[in-house]
């Protein structure tokens, strides 16, 4: 019994052999009756029985409709409505950023106040370069700007984080995910 059909013939028919390997198999088939018959039978079966038309099945049209609805809606959601999804999902983030800004601002204001007190306490030598006149405002203004930049880069990071589950749960969609898609689709549409 020849095993060449199993080893190479199947790959030959499915087009997975390199040109050199394919020629090699063809020359084997030319001298091996068994492999020739098996190869021809398989090719014939593929052409006449194992066709897409015969092996395919249709689900209930309701299922088709539902998947198509989810499919087109999910695409819209993930492109056009992404910012809204982001806001919805990360509504707490802006509040957090504001708190940080207040905290940082307060920190510098406090230091400015301390500096003012020090200046008041230890006299006028330092007046011209008083931290309260120049350093403190200089520190107070750039900082919120930085915070905004921080907030922006933060939000970018978070926006890409929203995509993270998509890439991490490769092929592991569960029904929770389905619900998420539905929700996120319906919400921005309103």
């Amino acid at each position, binding site marked *: 019994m020849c095993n060449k059909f199993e080893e190479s013939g199947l790959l030959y028919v499915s087009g997975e052999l390199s040109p050199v390997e394919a020629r090699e198999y063809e020359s084997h088939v030319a001298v091996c009756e068994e492999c020739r018959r098996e190869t021809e039978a398989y090719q014939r079966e593929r052409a006449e029985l194992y066709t897409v038309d015969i092996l395919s099945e249709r*689900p209930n049209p309701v299922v088709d409709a539902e998947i198509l609805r989810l499919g087109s809606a999910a695409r819209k959601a993930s492109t056009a409505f992404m910012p809204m999804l982001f806001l919805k999902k990360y509504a707490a983030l802006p509040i957090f950023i504001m708190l940080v800004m207040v905290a940082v601002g307060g920190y510098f204001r406090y230091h400015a106040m301390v500096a003012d007190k020090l200046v008041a306490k230890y006299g006028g030598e330092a007046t011209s370069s008083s931290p309260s006149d120049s350093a403190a405002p200089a520190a107070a203004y750039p900082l919120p700007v930085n915070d905004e930049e921080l907030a922006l880069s933060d939000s970018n990071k978070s926006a890409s984080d929203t995509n993270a589950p998509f890439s991490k749960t490769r092929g592991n969609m569960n029904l929770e995910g389905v619900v998420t898609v539905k929700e996120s689709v319906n919400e921005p549409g309103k």
Partner: protein
Amino acid sequence: MEQQTQQVTDDGQLFDKWLGGDPKGFSELYGRYSGRVFGFLLRMTGDREVAEDMLQETFLAAIRNVGQFDRSRSFLSWLFGIAHKRTIDYYRHAKVEADHVDDTDGSVGSKLETPEDSLSNKRLRKLVGEAVQRLEPSQREVFMLRELGGVPFKEIAEMMGCPINTALGRMRLALINMRKELKKRGIDNVQQI
């Protein structure tokens, strides 16, 4: 081969359409492949409702993981990879016994009455479907992934976590057993059809 390349290109264009927010991209890909994926799921589970749920899960997983699609590969193979995972989960969680249908052979009932009977595709689909259902699950898996999903044997072996020789061995057995089962159902010689 050329046709296959063409198909891959077309899929890529539809895919871009879909990614670009045009729902037609998705609906065309769905129209093109859902029947194959469903055929696979139906034969693997033997349960229409379960297969319908899994079809939905498969396409939704595709939607969610759309960024992971490797453009150099075939979209259909990728889709079948996802569907295949659903069937693994199904077998694992449902603890489905290898669903060998009781051997109360339906061959007599479905035997062709006369040689002149032209086999409509509908009838052929039924008989071939029954034969596929009879295959031992691992053979059925390879057979369906290859014949319906067009998944290369190399990728089938990866999906099933087995050496390629094992996948090829299962395929050969599947072909032999399909012939036996089809013969029981009156499809003896492919040339007659």
